[in-house]
């Protein structure tokens, strides 16, 4: 097995050549297979590349900020915090993204903005998915009172406009990044719970769930081993979409002064800072906006690719 997969890892393209037949399909573990399928989607790989770059940039800036007091970025470029230049300069060789209203370099701030955006997007969605998906699957599979309680609670949360609820939660918890993440995490729970429930409802009718019952498997086994894995595709797509929303929501909260406090740059804050200068100095909003756009697109592409790759049925299709 390990030899097989090693071969596959180094010469993955051989699997796609024309002499590829069923007999030569080795039996990789789930992860290897998923990765091979994922690689077959060029757009998904592109999305992964974009998100990886943004994530690496985010991690590096996080370390730079927390441990080195921005020494790294200052040594190669400008500080993202200090207003050192003429304000409102257009893009030039010295300042490729221009400078903002206070005279700070927009490129430096955009790079530093990756930190907060990635942190919020990943953790908030992870929190929401970790709470919402199991709740939804349990509700869908069990039905009855469990379902009523879970889903009506979810409906109550959904009853509030997402942003208003997030504002309320942040206001109650206090203004900082952790609370923004917690608030967004709670706000997005219903999205996952609803999708998980509706998918689990149909999956619960599949015969393999009956087979599991007939074999006397425990309820947790059925819910988490049989039902949940088969609900994952729509949840992943939802997660990738919500990451995009989370980045924008963080921006909105920052705009209202509820999120990360200045001078720490976040993309959303930068876009809103520049919104008053859109006609005279569009670059202030344009570049962080492009960064949001690129990252969001990257997440969406990953989501699409994962959806296909995670479904074993998508591979080795026999369709005539």
């Amino acid at each position, binding site marked *: 097995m390990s030899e097989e997969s090693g071969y596959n890892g180094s010469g993955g393209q051989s699997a796609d050549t*024309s002499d*590829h*037949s*069923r007999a030569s*399909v080795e*039996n990789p573990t789930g992860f290897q297979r998923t990765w091979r399928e994922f690689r077959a989607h060029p757009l998904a790989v592109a999305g992964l590349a974009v998100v990886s770059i943004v994530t690496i940039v985010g991690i590096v800036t996080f370390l730079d900020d927390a441990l080195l007091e921005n020494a790294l970025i200052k040594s190669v470029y400008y500080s993202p915090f200090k207003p050192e230049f003429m304000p409102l300069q257009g893009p030039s060789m010295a300042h490729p993204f221009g400078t903002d209203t206070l005279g700070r370099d927009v490129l430096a701030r955009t790079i530093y903005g990756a930190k907060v955006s990635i942190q919020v997007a990943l953790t908030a969605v992870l929190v929401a998915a970790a709470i919402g998906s199991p709740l939804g699957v349990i509700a869908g599979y069990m039905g009855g009172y469990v379902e009523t309680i879970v889903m009506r609670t979810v409906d109550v949360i959904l009853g509030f406009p997402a942003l208003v609820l997030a504002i309320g939660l942040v206001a109650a918890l206090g203004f900082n990044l952790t609370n923004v993440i917690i608030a967004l995490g709670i706000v997005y729970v219903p999205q996952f719970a609803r999708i998980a429930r509706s998918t689990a409802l149909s999956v619960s009718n*599949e*015969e*393999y769930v*009956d*087979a*599991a*019952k*007939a*074999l*006397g*498997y425990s309820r947790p*086994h059925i819910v988490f*081993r*049989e039902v949940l*894995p*088969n609900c994952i595709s729509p949840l992943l797509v939802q997660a990738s979409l919500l990451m995009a929303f989370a980045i924008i929501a963080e921006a909105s909260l920052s705009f209202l002064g509820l999120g990360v406090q200045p001078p720490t740059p976040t993309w959303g804050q930068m876009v809103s800072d520049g919104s008053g200068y859109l006609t005279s100095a569009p670059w202030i909003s344009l570049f962080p906006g492009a960064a949001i756009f690129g990252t969001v697109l990257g997440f969406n592409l990953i989501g699409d690719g994962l959806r296909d790759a995670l*479904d*074993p*049925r998508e*591979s*080795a299709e*026999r*369709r*005539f």
Partner: protein
Amino acid sequence: MVDAPQEETSHIARTEATDALLTVQDLTTEFATATGSIRAIEDVSFDVHPGESLGIVGESGSGKSVTARSIMRLLDENGRIANGSVELNGRDLSTMSEHELTEVRGSDIAMIFQDPMSSLTPVLTAGTQITETILEHQDVTKAQAKEQAIDLLDRVRIPDPESVIDTYPHQLSGGQRQRVLIAIAISCDPDVLIADEPTTALDVTIEAQILDLLEDLVNEREMSLVQITHDLGVVAETCDRVAVMYAGRIVEQGPVSEVFVEPRHPYTAGLLRSTPRIADVEPDLLAGNVPDPGERPVGCNFAPRCTHSTEDCHAVNPPLEPAGGHEVACIRTDDIGPLEPIPAATRRESTHQEVGGTIVEGENVRKEFSSADSLLDRLLPGGDPPVRAVDGVDLSLSKGETLGLVGESGSGKTTLGRLLLELTDRTSGEIRFDGRPLAEVPNGELRSRIQFVFQDPNSSLNPRQTVGKILRFAVNKHEAGVDVDERIAELLTEVGLDPETRYDYPHQLSGGQKQRVGVARALAVDPDVIVADEPTSALDVSVQGQLLDLLEDIKRKHGLSMVFISHDLSVIRHISDRVAVMYLGRIVEVNETADLFDAPQHPYTEALLSAVPNPDPQMNVARTVLEGEIPDPKRPPTGCNFVTRCPDAMPECERLDPELAATDDGDVACLLHHDVTRSDSDEAERSTN
């Protein structure tokens, strides 16, 4: 429509060459796939004469549906006709433009599809969908079209066509929908009607009605019919000529009366011999599987599975050549000579060695499904009455016995099977396992002693788990302390699979292999009883035979008892020791298999038996075709449940509800045989429920 003079000349030209209406010549269809182009069918040639009905028969993957779709030019986007021609009335369909085709389709050649559930648009009424076709091809007003539509519905024998015309598809039953589709297909009086498995999705009694209807339409209208099917019985009963397809090629072609009586191609013979029959013979197995279109062998496609094959067979692709009155594609035809279509071996009666005491027993078991789910619905009066899926059933299963449970869809057979395993809660009644009521059997014990084999191989295995993982859970659950890997290998070997299959995901397996995994999973807990719910209905004939044999072997080896649920009487005949016939939630007759098939007592059993299409064209006996359809289980008729369709109904049948009672010829619930009715106390209980 083509103008007259042109038609005249083409007609003359056609008569000179051949008097066929539809001529398919060397038709080859390719599909572009990610791994290159695949030939689904190769060099398919046949003629259809006016008023003739041709059956194209084959297993899945043989290319029979692709042939039909190629004729109609209804191929998917990645498919194309690579070679050959399709001439209808002297015009070549394969080279026509899309615009010309729209004129021909519907008015000259029409098609009926397999699945009546998805072939009608759900948002338009049946009438609209018929008139649409008429208005497209004929120069008539809407009112005239509607009149024609009513007339058509009447002709396809839909009762009360004036009201059916305004109904939506979901309000119609499967059989009625198929009738509407036939009405649409014949609305413009086509010369050729192509029917792609028109009865596969229907029950036997409804199938008999539809086949009768098609036969009458062909005779009445001088239409030609091309019927595509996997069911040899259907061909034997309804077709004049037959083309047997295997792996994309026609292997044998000729009149049904010759091909099915004196087959010349080993595949035809093998297929005929492996088909379970009602008659007193044991099917002969056809080993192996149909190769996938991408993996067909060099030379004769059938050679790897053929018992007569020689070196030469693997070298050249045999052409279709005349032999013994029909055409055969086999280089060894002359050496082999005519083959025997019916296996010689008579049935192994009494497959069970010794039948022990009762292991499962049900008494007055009931299951009602209520549509009123919410609390409010339950409190408010009115609403729909509950569906009585299982309505007071008594049954018993002895150790080592196979009980066949047969019935049409809606008879409650699957629900009854699920009740035995407590996969569904009972409404009332008692089920005893090994002498103890189910409530007293610990869940763990029950789960390890009684197991289920499911119907749909595509849904019964978790698509995200490998075969090994599926079995590992089951083994771990019930047998602590064994070497799990060894046990998995053992289980896979036992069901006839390579132990390496454990690394495969279900979608990588064929239907038959998936079902074997399902059987292995059930065996993993070493059960005493297996409930098999239509385990073979999704499989091809040859694969079906293999699976039945496997179940039979396993049953004998482990001394299992089995409840075998099926709608297919031939399969039931093959595997059961005793048969219970269900109708509308009740068991109407129980008897030893041989007795029940030789001398059915209940009129329903009799009708069911006579409705089964027989693959032997020489056995064409008059059939009892039941009228109407199974009644709404929410509102069963008063008196005997079968009274609405019974050919022998007496006046008292409408009042008295017969009980399943023992007679000299087995247990039967029919007033023709006894006068035991359901007791008053029983009735009282029913009304309070």
